[in-house]
């Protein structure tokens, strides 16, 4: 009896801890001297990573979702937190990326005073990092639409200032764009949530899913909430805010924006269409989502190829790569043994993109730091200045191109297999074309960086360990290439009953 109680308590603590713990970094940031506060922040990030790992281990060991009701209040009154396999996967992914971002952003120890000032991230960065962490975890765990709304708003308000940390005019402009469009999305989301509350008298996702039928009101609510999330995810053609925001921010901020922040609305779209909506509606909408995803891949990659600046290229690459996650929907929502594979492929793509994109933004930041600019035409020979960063960029790019042994390869093979078996030939063609175009923009940069510069480069020194942080993330993305080519049972732990039977 006490054993059950003890493990129940630990489960509660893990769920609540995942949301609360990152915020423990805030008091020292306000009170302690900057250097100490920075180190304490990184410690808190590490602790949060450990909590996420413990939570995932617990979910894996139990083989069931972990759930709690805050204060013991049950829905429809109370607020529920729930971690299924997919949530736990997202929690760990986010925690690893954000911990690495923290390491990357740390001031170089022992650097000369003049250099420290240039390299140091302001305390505001660390506060925003902690808030983003907490908000993301809440998005992944919250069980009701209102808590999710709060989490999304917190995420937006923590992410937007990251764009304009340096306070330059262009950055402020980009941040405003981001803010306004994200608010547009929030309003639509709130509209949908209000309609659902009016219809069913609850905002709890599981209760709504049980009660939901394809009534006109519910259809309207789903449409509004989905478009809101698509705007926040910068899905083509709603990507106007992404390139300036992700390319204008400091590298550490770009890394987390492009790698994990953008994944929160996508996570929610997955929940809407796989957990909340009746299958009939999901099957009807999936081709529209996939069509937009295909357009994102093709147009985004082509525009990336035309960019004159490295960070813009990577930002457009993000706009393109998001498309793959939408391409997954028609394959994942149908009742077929292959949908489990498509779904695993989509999740793997999401994660390997997160790690590789964070690594690439960090590497690009280091290249820009070494050269003093990030014009692609002037990158010739930068590989000599920051060799480890170039390897990180290349390995991250390998994953985007879908080449072995990177995670992007396994994800691509899974999606391709599912597409071919479900006779979705156009999806297979888009996946392959996207790989070709990604090869174009990644290899263009790598080829230039490997060249011998015409005249010796004037290079500013870069802290080597920051290069290694980027490389470590790229290696994690590569590590996903060693996942077996079959549906992952972990991702299906605690997924709604409608999924049972699809898992082999």
């Amino acid at each position, binding site marked *: 009896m006490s054993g059950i109680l003890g493990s129940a308590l630990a489960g509660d603590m893990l769920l609540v801890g995942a949301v609360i713990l990152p915020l423990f970094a805030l008091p020292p940031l306000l009170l302690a001297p900057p250097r100490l506060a920075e180190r304490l922040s990184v410690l808190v990030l590490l602790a949060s990573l450990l909590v996420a790992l413990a939570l995932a281990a617990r979910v894996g060991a139990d083989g069931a979702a972990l759930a709690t009701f805050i204060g013991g209040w049950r829905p429809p009154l109370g607020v529920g937190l729930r971690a299924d396999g997919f949530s736990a996967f997202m929690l760990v992914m986010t925690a690893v990326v954000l911990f690495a971002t923290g390491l990357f952003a740390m001031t170089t120890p022992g650097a000369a005073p003049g250099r420290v000032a240039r390299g140091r991230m302001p305390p505001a960065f660390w506060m925003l990092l902690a808030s983003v962490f907490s908000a993301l975890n809440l998005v992944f765990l919250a069980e009701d639409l209102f808590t999710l709304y709060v989490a999304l708003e917190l995420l937006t308000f923590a992410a937007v200032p990251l764009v304009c940390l340096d306070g330059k005019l262009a950055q402020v402009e980009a941040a405003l764009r981001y803010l306004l469009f994200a608010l547009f999305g929030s309003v639509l989301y709130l509209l949908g949530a209000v309609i659902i509350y009016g219809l069913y008298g609850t905002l709890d996702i599981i209760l709504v899913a049980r009660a939901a039928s394809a009534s006109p009101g519910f259809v309207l609510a789903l449409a509004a909430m989905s478009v809101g999330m698509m705007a926040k995810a910068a899905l083509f053609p709603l990507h106007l805010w992404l390139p300036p925001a992700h390319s204008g921010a400091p590298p550490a901020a770009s890394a987390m924006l492009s790698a994990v922040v953008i994944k929160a609305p996508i996570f929610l779209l997955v929940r809407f269409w796989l957990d909340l909506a009746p299958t009939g509606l999901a099957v009807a*909408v999936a081709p529209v989502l996939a069509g937009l995803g295909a357009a994102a891949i093709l147009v985004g990659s082509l525009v990336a190829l035309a960019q004159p600046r490295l960070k813009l290229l990577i930002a457009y690459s993000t706009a393109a790569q998001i498309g793959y996650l939408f391409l997954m929907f028609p394959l994942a929502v149908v009742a077929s043994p292959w949908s489990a594979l498509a779904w695993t492929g989509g999740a793997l793509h999401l994660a390997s993109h997160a790690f590789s994109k964070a690594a690439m933004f960090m590497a690009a930041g280091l290249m820009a730091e070494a050269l003093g600019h990030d014009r692609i035409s002037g990158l010739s020979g930068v590989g000599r200045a920051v060799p480890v960063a170039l390897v990180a960029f290349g390995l991250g790019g390998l994953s985007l191109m879908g080449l072995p042994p990177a995670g992007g390869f396994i994800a691509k093979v899974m999606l391709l297999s599912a597409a071919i078996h479900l006779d979705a030939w156009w999806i297979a063609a888009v996946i392959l074309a996207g790989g070709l175009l990604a090869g174009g923009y990644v290899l263009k940069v790598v080829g230039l960086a490997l060249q011998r510069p015409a005249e010796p480069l004037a290079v500013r020194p870069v802290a080597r360990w920051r290069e290694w942080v980027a490389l470590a993330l790229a290696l994690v993305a590569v590590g996903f290439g060693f996942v077996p080519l079959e549906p992952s049972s972990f991702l299906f732990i605690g997924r709604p009953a409608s999924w049972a039977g699809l898992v082999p």
Partner: protein
Amino acid sequence: MGNMSTSDLLLLAAVALPLLLALAAIKPWVRRRADVLLLLAPLPGLVAALAVPVGQSLLVVPPPFRLTFALDMPGAVLLGGAALLWLAAGLYAVFYLKDDPARGTFCVWWLLTLAGSFAVFLVADVASFYLAYALVSFSAYGLATHDDTPEARRAGRVYLALTVLGEALLIAAFVMLASSVTDANPLIRDAVAGLSASPWKEAILLLLLVGFTMKMGLFPLHVWMPLAHAVAPVPGSAVLSGIVVKAGVIGLIRFLPWGEGWPDWGAGLLAVGLFTAFYGVAIGLTQRHPKRALAYSTVSQMGVVAAVLGMGLKAGDGAVPALAAFYAVNHMLLKGAMFLTVGVVASTPRGRLLPVLAVAALLGLSLAGLPFTGGALAKYAVKAPMGDGLAAFLLALSAGGTTLLMARYVLLLLDVAQEGGEALAPRGLLVPWAALSLVAVLLPFGLFTPVTGLSLGTLFSLDTLIKGLWPVALGLAVGALIYQKPPRFSEVPPGDILAAAAPLGALYARVRDSAVLLDMVLRRWSTAALAVVMLAFVLAYVMAGAAFSPPITP
């Protein structure tokens, strides 16, 4: 994994050692010991090819991941030949690049390409093959572009573009192929066994053929080869033209369905192969640099290999792959030695050139199949599957073309010789070159019986000698005529029909620019706001259509 035999360890080490050395080369002091690195790396592969019994297989990582090594006859032949060439060219490179500041980087690409080339000959499961194939293909870029001249950069871009395209075609083929099997990552053998029952067999075969023949440099996808093989440093060219192109050959050997006849596909491969065999000679003859002439000769020779494989595919002859591998390994060593010759000639004064040219001529004649050389054995080995028809005649005639092209190559060598000076080429170049040349001419004698099962005696009948001799004699006679009265012609720019692809480039630029324009329009506030509203309506409309039309129930 618990109890590995020596054979298992050798197979594993053949691939693992070069990879570990490449990793160790992160350290500058390791990188400086290029001599040790390049000498050590191919050794386990060489010993494995000699000592490991054919038929040995090794499961390194169990399913579902499954990394499997297996040694079969074509793989063993190609592995052994490749190891010899890597060794000789590696020793040559140590001296050739001794004053090159970027030697360390070259070493790393060398080791990676080497590991990839051994791996394609050895791995037996689909996913590992794709990995090995990607490794050898992309690492070869580093060898080809080492000199970093504008031509090298252009060659590198063309090479990369076609390589990425090839990878996309192959992954599509592999995914379709593997889907006939329940395994996550099947053995190549098992996947291919399901091909004839696959609903997409035509598509799979087309993708496989285009993907692999692109690597072999078959017309019209050969355009990268004369560019890339001519711009690399000499030892790099030797392994690119000798070994890396064989990744395509082993791909066809592993993935085509031998043992059942595919008349149409076989005939198609045969036709393209024969055409390429003559096309390579024709364009090669116009070249003004010996390395480009050699690169076009590789195009032509791979055409021959493709023709032989096509014939086997047509007839469903399971013996053909081993014979084609035998032909390929003969070409591998000869072409490697001929590329090394170019570097030797370049550091030999004109006055002392004769012995070097004599060796070059011997190598060339062996490639053309002059009786009593190793090349004659290779030509003989592929005669049987070719039959007696038109295809066999054309193949023999192509040997005449090869003779002609080789004569041209020897003459072109004169142009690259040193102008003054007395000393012979340095020993660091001469020794590996001479040793490789010797091996290239003699090795087929050792391999002939084990691979073909025929005795060497059959080669010395009068009939066989005449069949081997007339194309060479014809080639030499035509060559002499041309030499007497040289026709005027201008050099076909390397990459020949690549110029015809210019509209493709323009099309790409147009598409890209319209994407940029579209993006600019979509990133306006007014458009984006409208798009949000429209999208909401579209989603609602689609859902309403599904929910409220009678036949579909939610």
